[in-house]
């Protein structure tokens, strides 16, 4: 990075921390600290909801996925607008009028304490560990590409976020999210403009799209009636709908954002704002990845995108074997570049066949390089899609803009981390400390402890991120565990707000049955993960009603909390 890039990045980091501290002043009670005094306007909450969802790895991983796999991933968001409407009609009024701090608090009023405690505990377990991954994944990529130490990158990102969230709570989270989301939107348009501008002379946007289409990168709508195939229209519309209902309706990191609205109208509008903008935003991010794919037809990509692993390959692999792979790689690149140019000239199908031939040779040479690397390091499983976009930024963007887009990656990571630290502290304080330890501590005591819990979860995330390289497969297990209960928790909320009849016993055992059924489906079938939330939610809802009907509760459940 040039000194101008460094200056941009430093201005961003210092500026956002200072702004977060300024925006978060004046907290006197935990209502202020956790819900920004319930005074926020819809556009600020809406941008915060959006910023919390888009993590750094979403930003760099999605562009990388578009490069390797095309735009099919977009269908995951197709269910989002419908989910937002359903949430505005169902859980949002219940949460808002119940004046709760956490979504799980509502479940105690509707069912019982154990259902609340179990769901909140599941949230703390999964989100607490996944926030470490949220911090680790971009830090790893940036440390490799910028030549920084992994620990220093993790601490820079983590500590600068912890500082303003500890001081300012949710008000800092929301206002910094607003700024960060502005930077992210600006960065998306800059990347798109630069990718289009850097196409070689004689190759326009239409040509770039033609080349992408030839490679199937523009295919979004797949109507195959399959439960195992990833990213079909149906898994996007139905599975995506349930995923978004679970994430925005039952995950405290999102619920807490819209509970900060100054009225029910403001809370609803913040979600509808996302319903309008989320799909177009993901489309633009994926399109950027596709244009980077076209860009590397006319500029030489590296043999491997992970610079550190490429250096290891050059250091440790047999030189003659690597040289032979490089020769084949360069020849295939040259052939693909020439045939691509010829194809764009006349759209000739025979030229397209030659182009595909060179593409296959290129893939084969790269696979050989990966095989050689895996053999050299004695470990299988190399993947580098997350390195594609940051490599493009650092090697192709003009001075100043590269620093800005690296700041965008930091902004995406920090906006997610801040919301998650704040929501983890809220669930710990409200669902556990206030519920089981002390409920009459007074404002000063509760505010102090809320800050301690925020610091604890921030420190925990840094610790997990610092150990993530060693924890590897354990983290994958935890992430998979998270996907088992996401839909099941949605089923419990559906029982709470859609039926007056469901009992606390039905909800609690229904939740356990739902989690078990998702585990069974995931471990014994090849059904795509987008369907897991459908399985979990439907199983909990049906089994909860069956248990209520056939195993009546001795004590009646508490009165239903009507809005």
């Amino acid at each position, binding site marked *: 990075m040039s000194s101008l890039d460094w200056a941009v990045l430093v201005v961003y980091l210092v500026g956002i921390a200072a702004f977060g501290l300024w925006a978060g002043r004046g907290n006197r009670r935990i209502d202020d600290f956790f819900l920004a005094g319930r005074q926020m306007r819809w556009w600020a909450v809406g941008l915060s909801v959006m910023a919390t969802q888009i993590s750094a790895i979403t930003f760099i991983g999605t562009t990388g996925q578009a490069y390797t796999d095309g735009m099919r991933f977009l269908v995951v968001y197709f269910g989002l607008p*419908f989910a937002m*409407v359903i949430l505005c009609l169902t859980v949002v009024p219940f949460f808002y009028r119940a004046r709760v701090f956490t979504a799980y608090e509502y479940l105690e009023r509707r069912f019982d304490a154990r259902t609340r405690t179990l769901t909140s505990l599941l949230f703390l377990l999964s989100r607490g560990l996944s926030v470490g991954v949220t911090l680790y994944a971009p830090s790893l990529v940036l440390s490799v590409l910028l030549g920084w130490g992994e620990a220093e990158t993790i601490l820079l990102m983590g500590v600068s976020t912890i500082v303003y969230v500890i001081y300012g709570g949710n008000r800092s989270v929301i206002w910094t999210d607003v700024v960060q989301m502005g930077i992210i939107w600006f960065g998306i348009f800059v990347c798109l403009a630069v990718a289009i501008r850097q196409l070689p002379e004689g190759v326009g946007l239409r040509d770039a799209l033609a080349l992408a289409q030839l490679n199937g990168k523009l*295919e979004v709508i797949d109507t195959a009636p399959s439960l195992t195939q990833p990213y079909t229209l149906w898994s996007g519309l139905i599975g995506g709908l349930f995923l978004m209902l679970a994430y925005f309706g039952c995950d405290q990191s999102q619920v807490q954002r819209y509970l900060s609205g100054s009225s029910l109208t403001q809370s609803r509008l913040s979600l*509808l704002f996302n319903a309008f903008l989320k799909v177009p935003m993901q489309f633009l991010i994926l399109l950027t990845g596709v244009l980077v794919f076209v860009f590397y037809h006319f500029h030489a990509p590296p043999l491997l995108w992970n610079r550190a692993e490429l250096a290891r390959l050059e250091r440790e692999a047999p030189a003659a074997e690597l040289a032979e792979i490089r020769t084949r790689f360069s020849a295939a690149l040259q052939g693909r570049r020439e045939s691509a140019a010829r194809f764009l000239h006349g759209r000739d199908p025979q030229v397209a066949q030659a182009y595909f031939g060179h593409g296959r040779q290129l893939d084969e040479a790269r696979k050989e390089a990966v095989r050689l690397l895996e053999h050299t390091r004695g470990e299988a499983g190399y993947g580098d899609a997350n390195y594609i976009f940051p490599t493009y930024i650092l090697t192709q963007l003009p001075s100043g803009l590269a620093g800005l887009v690296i700041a965008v990656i930091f902004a995406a990571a920090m906006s997610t981390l801040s919301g998650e630290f704040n929501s983890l502290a809220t669930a710990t304080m409200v669902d556990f400390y206030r519920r089981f330890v002390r409920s009459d501590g007074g404002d000063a005591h509760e505010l102090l402890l809320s800050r301690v819990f925020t610091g604890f979860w921030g420190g925990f995330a840094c610790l997990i991120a610092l150990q993530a390289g060693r924890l590897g497969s354990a983290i994958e297990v935890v992430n998979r565990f998270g996907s088992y209960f996401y839909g099941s928790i949605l089923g419990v909320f559906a029982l709470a707000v859609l039926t007056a009849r469901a009992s606390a016993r039905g909800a609690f055992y229904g939740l356990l049955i739902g989690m078990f059924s998702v585990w069974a489906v995931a471990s014994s079938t090849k059904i795509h993960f987008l369907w897991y939330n459908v399985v979990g939610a439907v199983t909990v809802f049906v089994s909860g009603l069956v248990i209520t009907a056939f195993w009546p509760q001795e004590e009646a459940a508490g009165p239903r909390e009507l809005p």
Partner: protein
Amino acid sequence: MEDQDDPVPVFGSWPRIYAAVIVSALVVMGLIAWFSAHRY
């Protein structure tokens, strides 16, 4: 502040804004399908 004190901006009522969200989602999906299928 209660929600009845807070009017629905631009669209005037909740059914209209929900309808606008759904129509906009369908239009966006239609445009994406066209973008995907169009021959460049």
